[in-house]
């Protein structure tokens, strides 16, 4: 089986706090691999190191066998890695269309000359934009400003922006956070659909979702990897139960 992402001994210390320590992880191409753990376990920090937002204190990240440790974050979408943020992170005063268009343009324009062309010269990007927006169910809002959307719709837009990079590997940081139950179901369905075309590394709090859709689950606690396995193995793991119960 092909491992698209390999992480070795990844570590991040904030002063004396060790947010992530010595985590090893391999993501198999074409699967949904989830990372779970109690609040503050280090999941977002772990993601931020992969996506270049914060440089690791130690360890390495290999993507398609290339060492990408500490790469600046703007380089990753061009290599095929896109990230969806835990806290909704869109362009508020721009329309839904502009939000997604800009993301597609970023990874699809070939030369700097394209920067100076007219916005109307990019038919393929226009079409892709509409398709992606329709995939996340926001077609009726396409010309509204992002700030005018509801929270749930902004989460969907966040996802659409991420998909605009046409990535091979999707990093999703709690895509269902703060969503109403119906919207959560919708998002779960979307992730399941996406898994047919993308490899997904998912952080998620809601257990039933993780158990339902993941192939492999990695459990972090206090920055360390304490368990890894199939949903069934994780469900029956004593260590995992302790970690979650111990915190409550």
């Amino acid at each position, binding site marked *: 089986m092909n491992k698209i992402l390999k992480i070795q001994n990844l570590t991040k210390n904030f002063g004396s706090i060790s947010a992530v320590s010595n985590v090893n992880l391999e993501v198999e191409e074409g699967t949904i691999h989830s990372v779970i753990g109690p609040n503050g376990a280090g999941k977002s920090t772990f993601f931020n190191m992969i996506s270049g937002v914060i440089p690791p204190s130690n360890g390495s990240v290999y993507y398609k066998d290339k060492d990408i440790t500490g790469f600046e974050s*703007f380089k*990753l*979408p061009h290599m095929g890695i*896109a990230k969806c943020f835990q806290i909704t992170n869109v*362009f508020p005063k*721009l329309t839904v269309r502009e939000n997604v*268009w800009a993301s597609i343009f970023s990874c699809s324009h070939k030369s700097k000359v*394209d*920067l100076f062309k007219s916005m109307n010269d990019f038919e393929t990007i226009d079409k892709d934009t509409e398709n992606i927006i329709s995939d996340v169910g926001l077609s009726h809002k396409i010309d509204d400003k992002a700030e005018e959307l509801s929270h749930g719709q902004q989460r969907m837009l966040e996802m659409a922006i991420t998909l605009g990079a046409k990535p091979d590997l999707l990093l999703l940081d709690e895509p269902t956070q703060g969503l109403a139950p119906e919207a959560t179901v919708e998002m779960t369905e979307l992730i399941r659909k996406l898994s047919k075309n993308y490899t997904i590394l998912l952080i998620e709090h809601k257990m039933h979702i993780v158990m339902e859709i993941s192939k492999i689950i990695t459990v972090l606690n206090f920055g360390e990897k304490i368990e890894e396995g199939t949903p069934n193995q994780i469900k029956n793991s004593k260590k995992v139960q302790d970690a979650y119960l111990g915190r409550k």
Partner: protein
Amino acid sequence: MMKNKYSFIALIIFLFVGPFLFPNATIAEMLIFGIVAISTNIMLGYTGMLSFGQALFFGTSAYISGLMLLGGFPLFLAIPVATLGSFIISLFIGYFCVKREGLYFICLTFAFNQMFYFIAYVWHDVTGGEDGLVGVERPAYIDSQLTFYIFTSMMFLFAVIALYKIVTSPLGLIFKLIRENANRAEAIGYNVRFYKLISFSIASTFTGLAGSLYVLIHSMVPIDQIHWLKSGDIIFMTLFGGVGSFLGPLIGVVGYIWLSDTFSIIWARWPLIMGVIFAIVVLYFRGGVSELLENLFKKYKSISKKTEHEQNIKNTKLN
């Protein structure tokens, strides 16, 4: 789109009517600082970067073009060389400035401005120091009032069209992404620092172009044109007009130059009045004069629509 069409029509009308409303030197100054403010807005309004050093580019370019004209070079060489000079200096200075954000960015641009001012001040042999660079002659073919006006308005239109092309290109969208959310722009693959540098350079290069023309108005370059107070004026004019629209800053320039011309005759302490006006605009009309006009226009439209609607109701009743 409709909004832009109306503004461009208004602009063309202004270009025809302007020379009859204002004295020759005043209208030329309005167009030249129009280029400065509209280009500064690319950085300020579109990208969200406040530079307190734009007089550096305006002044330096004015010196280069003035010195070349004094040296006997033709105007059509002096303008491109001075503009290119601003471009190169902006890349160099911008490279350091965009490494920092917010207040630190402002301070850096300000510091560079001070540095260039100081050089101009002490380098008396070349710049004329405090006395200014004097004795620059306008070429004969633009010496008459009419030809000079045609020349400046052509240069102005060229700059406005070029800048409009930029804001309506993907590059213009990238600038807005940076203003809205620089982290997210980075996460979707844009090298934010690089694009900030481009934005800074575009604004500075066009400001340089304007500076190279400025020398023709009064046949001289006074040293205030490179002073940081001028950088303040540039920001003031841009904000006063409104950073929310492409041509908004031009309204600020016209208003500012007209008001300061008017008040400076009446009262020597006129900057006081400008200060009060500035405070009012910043406190109550964040979008500047252009947004104020736009809102009035919208209100007028909705009222006329309403009366039309009422008329229709009346008509149907009558039928």
